[in-house]
């Protein structure tokens, strides 16, 4: 089934969001109070690594992207 891979990525994403506490109302509140590095660490590392990944994908032309 062609949607299975998307379902699996979604399940993985849901698990990460909960286990990282990124979906926590309290963590988001704490972030906007500048009282923890946790959320900034998650978003910051995701973006830095994401930028490197996108750069690498473009550079080495993985698939059609």
């Amino acid at each position, binding site marked *: 089934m062609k949607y299975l891979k*998307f379902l699996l990525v*979604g399940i*993985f994403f*849901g698990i*990460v969001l909960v286990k990282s506490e990124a979906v926590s*109302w*309290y963590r988001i*509140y704490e972030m906007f109070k500048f*009282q923890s590095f946790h959320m900034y660490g998650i978003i910051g590392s995701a973006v830095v690594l994401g930028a490197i990944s996108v750069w690498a994908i473009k550079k080495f032309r993985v698939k059609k992207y």
Partner: protein
Amino acid sequence: MDSILQPWPWYVSGPLITLVMVFLLYFGKTFGMSSNLRTLCSIGGAGKYSDFFKFDWKAQRWNLTVVLGAIIGGFIAVTFLSDGSVMDLNPETIKDLKELGFENAGTSLLPGEIYDWNNALSVKGLAILIVAGFLVGFGTRYAGGCTSGHAITGLSNLQLPSLIAVIGFFVGGLIMTHFLIPLIFTA
């Protein structure tokens, strides 16, 4: 196994979120959750009222599948992959929340003061959720994305509009946290 059941540190979680984006790029798609709000409106027939919703939503079924998966994954994580440990929040945060009437901060993902059924179905609680839902729905479509599409995908692609949107989200969050929440919730 213990390290899976305990909350995951940021330096594990962040890269795993990148991995989600990379998987979707590899599949020839893109990572963005709030586009699904538009898709759902179109399925509901909103195309009759606005051209914005007149598009081939069937091409977006893959993204709805990702959302469905995220719901299932969230359930799996809460039900089977958690040891019930309390969030390691800053004591200052817990104290600040107590002053606003939020007890037991960090013992669950969401505050019962807003999301418990008896609070959610009160006039004030219902108004909070409906207004909040409207703001999220309108804002993400007006900006063309949310935290996943703009902050993760957009910034990873070094898109200036995404940076502007993310700054906007953040300023909005600061206004809500520092000015509006103390007005809405006074213990």
